């Protein structure tokens, strides 16, 4: 499961993404400083023109000031432009890398992870969470550097004008500190809650939209909406709570300002009485004090954005921090193109649970076709996951061509051993795109050759747009048999050494069934194939049958021999035959 990452963890995990864009951010920061200085120069030039030019009826300083301003007006857009481009490039590069890393993470996580997380949540991590970061990343630097500089300069001016009044102005500090504390106290939770609610709404939407045909067939539209509405309302509620946390900070800025002004004016009044301050100084001081709170207000609004961005980043980082258990060892070797598969005393259980595969030792010869048979829960599917290294055994070892799978590179592992779930899942795109799922660089010719190999070329080429036919969403236009053929063609194109076939549980009409079986036979030829057999007719055709029960291998022999032995398999076979022939 994904856990909430602490601020420190978020910072550490972001480093690899931040480092490459540091220079860009640095450049943007310099640009912000220059443009802030230009902005501040405006009033200073006006003051200069008034004091030295207008009041003395001297045109020269006036012209100098106006022309300098004109020069700055020409310079400023260049600086702002640089700042905009640098900040945007930096943040978009950061986000691009973050998205890429998060998607890679999805590929590295074990299947078990996906059985616990809902699709909508994962989609929200890679989309809405990342999007929520965008504005923050771009504006953050501008606001922090710009406002910070403005605050620092103004404070300096205040201290120079009147150290005593500057000291008095500090009365505003407790207000600011208290409200920041109150804000930070609630902001983390409030903004994490928003991200969680967003993920939940997305999940309901995703499920409702994927299952829309069933929803409509059972007239569940209003029920589905009823289930959805509270989540949607909860998202509004989360925002509402965050807004109440925000106002602890935002609205206290004017309060701090008023407090400071009142204290300063009272002190100034008594100072003025004993002549230690001039009227002009008071006016100037007060003007700057008012100006000081402008950047403070903006800075505080930025803090809201910051917390929101931090929460979103925390969610993505939470995904990145999930440990991938299948990792490549240093010095991993290329797994050999050798179809011998050996299991030695393999035991495995999920997450410290009881073992579901126990002490399995098996050897499959290169090119052998074996069938795994057993009732639901016997451990067939788990064994298939171990064979394809979705998980590593708790003890014992699995080797391909004499090399332990854990010693091999992941790339060669995925290339040599594939798991083929027979019911085909289609991605949007053309039939050809779907066939080249594992090898996107494959040409149309290669796709056609793969289809030819499994005897399905004609079927797909005869479609109106041939293999360029758009399968449309979820393959609604392709029949179940055609989807299976696409899945088999994928494997033919991937050209693995070992195929672990999770046989389709559903049956097709006999003609298509025959076509699919021919395709499977074609792709199986010359390769080691281990089939999780749901139909015993498949086991009958296999070289060897492995019967599993309660995680253990109980019988291994050819079909004929096992039937002769008259044990467990023979009983399964008898009941299967009764089922098949009952209606005929």
């Amino acid at each position, binding site marked *: 499961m994904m856990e909430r990452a602490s601020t420190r963890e978020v910072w550490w995990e972001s480093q690899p993404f931040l480092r490459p864009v540091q220079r860009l951010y640095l450049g943007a920061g310099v640009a912000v400083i220059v443009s802030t200085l230009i902005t501040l120069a405006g009033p200073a030039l006006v003051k200069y023109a008034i004091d030295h030019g207008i009041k003395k009826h001297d045109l020269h300083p006036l012209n100098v000031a106006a022309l300098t301003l004109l020069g700055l007006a020409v310079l400023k857009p260049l600086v702002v432009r640089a700042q905009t481009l640098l900040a*945007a490039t930096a943040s978009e590069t950061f986000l691009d890398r973050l998205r890429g890393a998060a998607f890679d993470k999805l590929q590295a996580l074990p299947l078990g992870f996906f059985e616990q997380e809902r699709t909508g949540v994962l989609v929200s991590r890679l989309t809405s969470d990342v999007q929520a970061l965008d504005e923050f990343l771009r504006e953050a630097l501008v606001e922090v550097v710009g406002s910070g500089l403005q605050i620092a300069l103004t404070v300096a001016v205040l201290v120079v004008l009147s150290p005593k009044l500057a000291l008095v102005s500090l009365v505003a500090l407790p207000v600011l500190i208290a409200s920041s504390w109150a804000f930070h106290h609630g902001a983390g939770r409030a903004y994490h809650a928003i991200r969680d609610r967003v993920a939940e709404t997305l999940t309901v939407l995703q499920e409702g939209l994927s299952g829309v045909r069933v929803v409509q067939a059972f007239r569940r539209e209003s029920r589905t909406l009823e289930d959805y509405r509270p989540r949607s309302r909860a998202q509004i509620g989360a925002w509402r709570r965050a807004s109440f946390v925000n106002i602890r900070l935002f609205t206290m800025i004017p309060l701090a300002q008023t407090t400071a002004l009142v204290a300063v004016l009272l002190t100034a009044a008594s100072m003025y009485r004993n002549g230690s301050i001039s009227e002009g100084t008071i006016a100037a001081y007060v003007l700057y004090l008012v100006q000081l709170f402008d950047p403070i207000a903006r800075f505080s609004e930025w803090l809201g954005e910051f917390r929101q961005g931090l929460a979103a980043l925390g969610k993505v980082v939470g995904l990145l921090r999930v440990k991938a258990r299948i990792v490549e060892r240093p010095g991993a070797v290329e797994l050999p193109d050798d179809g011998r598969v050996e299991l030695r005393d393999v035991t495995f259980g999920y997450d410290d649970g009881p073992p579901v595969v126990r002490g399995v030792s098996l050897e499959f010869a290169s090119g052998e076709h074996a069938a795994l048979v057993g009732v639901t829960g016997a451990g067939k599917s788990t064994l298939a996951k171990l064979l394809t290294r979705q998980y590593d055994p708790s003890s014992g070892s699995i080797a391909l061509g004499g090399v332990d799978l854990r010693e091999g590179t992941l790339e060669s592992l995925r290339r040599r051993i594939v798991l083929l779930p027979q019911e085909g899942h289609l991605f949007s795109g053309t039939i050809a795109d779907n066939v080249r799922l594992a090898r996107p660089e494959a040409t149309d010719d290669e796709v056609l050759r793969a289809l030819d190999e499994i005897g399905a070329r004609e079927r797909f080429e005869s479609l109106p747009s041939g293999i360029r036919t758009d399968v449309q969403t979820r393959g609604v236009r392709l029949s179940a048999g055609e989807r299976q053929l696409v899945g088999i063609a994928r494997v033919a194109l991937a050209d693995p050494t070992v195929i672990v076939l999770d046989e389709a549980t559903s049956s097709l009409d*006999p003609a298509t069934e025959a076509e699919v079986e021919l395709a499977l036979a074609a792709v199986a030829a010359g390769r080691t194939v281990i089939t999780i057999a749901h139909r015993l007719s498949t086991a009958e055709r296999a070289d060897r049958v492995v019967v599993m029960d309660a995680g253990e291998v109980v019988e291994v022999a050819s079909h004929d021999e096992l039937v002769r032995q008259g044990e467990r398999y023979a009983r399964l076979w008898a009941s299967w035959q009764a089922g098949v022939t009952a209606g005929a």
Partner: protein
Amino acid sequence: MGELEARRASAWRFVRAIVRAQPYGVSGAVVSGLLWQTGAVAAPLVVKYAIDHGIVPHDHGALLLWLLVLAGVGLLEVCAGAFRHLYAIRNRAHTDARVRDAIFAHALRLDAAYHDQVGPGELLSRASSDSLHLARMMDAIGHTIGYALTVVAVAIVMLILDPQLALIVLVPVPFVSVGAWLYSRRYERGTRELQESWAQASTLVEETVSGVRVVKGLGAGGALSATFRGRSAQIKDRALHLARLDAIFIPALETLPLLGIATVLWFGGRSVIDGGLSVGSFVAFNAYVVMLVWPLRVLGQRVTTLQKALAASSRITEVLEAEPQLREPRHPVELGAQGDIRLEGVRFGHEGDRFVLDGLDLHVAPGESLALVGATGSGKSTVAGLLARLYDPEDGRVLLDGHDLRELRLDDVRRAVALVFEETFLFSESVRENIRVGRPDASDEDVQRAAELAGAAAFIGGLPDGYETVLGERGFSLSGGQRQRIAIARAILADPAVLVLDDATSAVDATKEHEIRAALAEVMRGRTTLVIAHRPATIALADRVAVLEGGRIVELDTHEALLRQSARYRALLALDEVAA
């Protein structure tokens, strides 16, 4: 009107509707925004009075009075600021929800034909990502109007102070505004393209996670990562394209006030020296020009916010304006639901230049069960979809109890005709709720009876929490056969007049199918049933069998008779092989 204009027009309509939908939120944001702005402008004035009338004349009473006023203004700012923020967030959250709700509700109304074209990933991204742009627009609305009024007020004051100088400063404003507006239109297209890339990326994520078994099994992770990186890079490129628009727009906006100040200095300064303008007025004039800097900058950015919202709206209205092709009849016929179904000359679906169903005639009498048999792609599932009115035929009629389905309420049709699909979709709810889908008010006993009939009771008993076990997303933890049995239990509980089983037992182990065969026989008794199946044992349960080929029924008889007489039938069931 071209398509582009039409799209823009409906986007505008939607934006207006969104604004109008929250009269209180919008007016609250505007009023509190104005009050806040008033406070912010008043505070320096009050301070000036406190100095001029309190401190300088040593009038302690007046000073305290003005400080009291200052405190009042501060309080106003605090309250108005709080409401301004609360309303902004409120408008934002409600807009986001409104768009999302509208898309979801409408998507649920749109028929299968639409969802065949537009996948869940597309709709999801419109509901979650495009809505964000409208939410941002609404978030800013209070501030924006406040700033706009500030600009107007400042312009008026400047005109009063010195009309000539004011005109010099203000004349460029209309031209700049028009220019800014014209330029900002580029954001619309850029945003649209960016949103499209986002939709593609999220579709890929959605499909990858849904098909994670295939992806991992095939080791396609690396390839998909490469594809995703391509889409991610496209997002980056398109976001940077928008940034390049910003890089012209924002600098231009920020430079204008500087030019304004330079102009005032040049002309105003000369005017003061000539004696046409007082120093005080000149200083005040300058202060007002400075006051325009921030509002103008923000207003400029809001123009782009609006354009982005328009782009998002046009994507949203694309969904909302899609009409369901299945229309509810204006004067629906009441349905008694005897379960008499008849297809007359039905044509549907294109496969190249021919129809998938090409003049199909079929009649199933009330209480009769009929097995529909045919090769893959012969259109069996299409017949099932037509009976439940997931689609309307392109030609011909589908009749239920003698009424064209198009004359009946959709709800009545769906209640009378239960469709069980090959692929069972399980909701992320308990087993009990999943069975109850077809009849939400069913008692626990009824649910159990249905489960027993469907042969599901045994494995449900073995689940960790029995009937309360929550099924994972898409029922991940159940086998195909178990899911199908849940689906059959659903149909049994729904107790429809017509039951359509579309390959609904295909995933039940052949060795176990006999367990539910009795259940199916029980369900089919006295109920009009259309069974699409491949296994002879299942087909044999039906009273009659129809063979579908070339878009029509080519044979119609009992299973036994067809077995005896029809070589085509035997070939279709591949029974010659088994017999041999």
